[in-house]
């Protein structure tokens, strides 16, 4: 664990050094220096105007995530349990997964208009597919011997679901949730950039329009820190879950 933390510290220092180097190499205007960017983040956080935007993004993201997780798990598990529909649905899901979701955006805007619902839906569209695919495979690849064992040990349906099905499928389902988390965040922000008057995505767009490099970098840094932190935690859990299988 100690060497682990040291590795992470070294990595952060290296990234900061590269960043500083790039800044000096490209000259002012294209990038802001690390220190200036952190200072700008602090100033942003000190601005009362900033918080409603952050709140807007956070609530859009959480709603999108809830929908993606709820729908993804339900659809994925149902498809996994029902062999035939799973086989029919899999190529469709994979196709959905690989098309750029931006192409769907006009349709989403048409249906939901500009504002909260559109970005929630757009975020959820990004996250739901990987969650469904992983959940489907988790259920489909469940070793039937575990169910036989549950029968022999005289577990009822509820105990079988909780004590056998859930732990047996959890590692793979969790990987789906981790991937779904990242993509939902991307989707929500994209939604905000093009179809919203509020939120971090909108701020980012506005800053791009005004060519405010410091604001762009500061918001990006904030988002990166958030995404990396959560994703690292999820990765650690994911790794722990998979180590036993």
């Amino acid at each position, binding site marked *: 664990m100690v060497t682990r933390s040291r590795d992470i510290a070294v990595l952060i220092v290296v990234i900061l050094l590269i960043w500083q180097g790039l800044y000096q190499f490209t000259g002012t205007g294209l990038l802001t220096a690390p220190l200036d960017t952190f200072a700008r983040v602090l100033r942003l956080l000190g601005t009362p105007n900033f918080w409603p935007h952050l709140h807007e993004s956070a609530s859009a993201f959480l709603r999108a995530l809830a929908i993606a997780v709820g729908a993804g798990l339900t659809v994925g598990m149902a498809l996994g349990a029902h062999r035939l529909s799973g086989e029919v649905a899999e190529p469709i899901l994979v196709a959905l997964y690989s098309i750029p979701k931006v192409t769907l955006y006009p349709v989403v805007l048409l249906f939901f208009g500009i504002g909260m619902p559109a970005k929630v839906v757009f975020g959820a569209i990004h996250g739901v597919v990987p969650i469904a695919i992983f959940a489907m495979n988790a259920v489909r690849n469940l070793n039937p011997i575990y169910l036989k064992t549950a*029968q*022999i*040990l*005289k577990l009822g349906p509820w105990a079988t679901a909780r*004590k056998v099905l859930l*732990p*047996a499928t959890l590692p793979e389902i969790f990987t789906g949730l981790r991937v779904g988390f990242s993509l939902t965040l991307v989707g929500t922000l994209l939604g905000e950039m093009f179809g919203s008057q509020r939120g971090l995505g909108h701020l980012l767009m506005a800053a791009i329009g005004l060519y405010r490099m410091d604001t762009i970098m500061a918001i990006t840094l904030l988002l990166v820190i958030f995404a990396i932190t959560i994703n690292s935690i999820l990765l650690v859990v994911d790794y722990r879950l998979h*180590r*036993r299988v």
Partner: protein
Amino acid sequence: MAKGEAHVTLQGVTRVYPGVAGQQPVHALGPLDLELVKGEFFSVVGPSGCGKSTLLDVLAGLASVTDGAIRFEGVPIHGRVPDGIGVVFQEDASFPWLTVEDNIAFGLRQNSVEAGEVRRRVDHALSLMGLKDFIRAYPAQLSGGMRQRVCIARTLVLEPRLILLDEPFGSLDQQTRLLMGDELLRLWRETESTVLLITHALDEAAMLADRIGVMSARPGRFLEIVETGWPQDRDSRIVARPEFGRITGRLWSHLRVESLKALGQDRPPL
């Protein structure tokens, strides 16, 4: 129920796997008659794919018979797992998300056995199966043979009256296999349970069982039931006896022909 009474009876037991998605149905087993006597050690040998695991499934109530009837302690088994049956499967069925200890205690806890009793039985099984040093290990950290021992222990702690084992020592080396055989004999004597052991190792069957059912190539039926005549308090040292060689020789004379059939080198029309 006294020793010597019929514990399990099979009459005309047949199982046909229905053909899924245009495939031919597979007639896997039977018709087959058998009577397991209370407290006996019965072994089943037969060529690969002859329906041994299928026999175990229908006996345990995990699959229903296509035809015929099975009674366990006088009550018909029909696609429902009755009380008092323990099964060790051919595949590794240990739960990878639980430690060795929690795996073994799983069935007891699910059936609300009191904690002190769980402790006592699990400790006993741990030392019996030589897993004492691995209480907190996860199955991924164990060898295949050790995982199989976890599964055996998980079954034994439930103190079943009928124990069905499907090639439980398949992943063990020959020496450990013999020693585990000794343990199994000891357990069988101690618990006075009825044991049905499926194995592909003829020497294992010959050494452990009171009676050995020799199965034909698929669809599996009993060609002959060989009585070993071993004393109750036998152990692995009987492999040195001349009768042992005679029994394995007898098993092989049947199985050579059936195994060739199973390999398709002399397949009779179905």
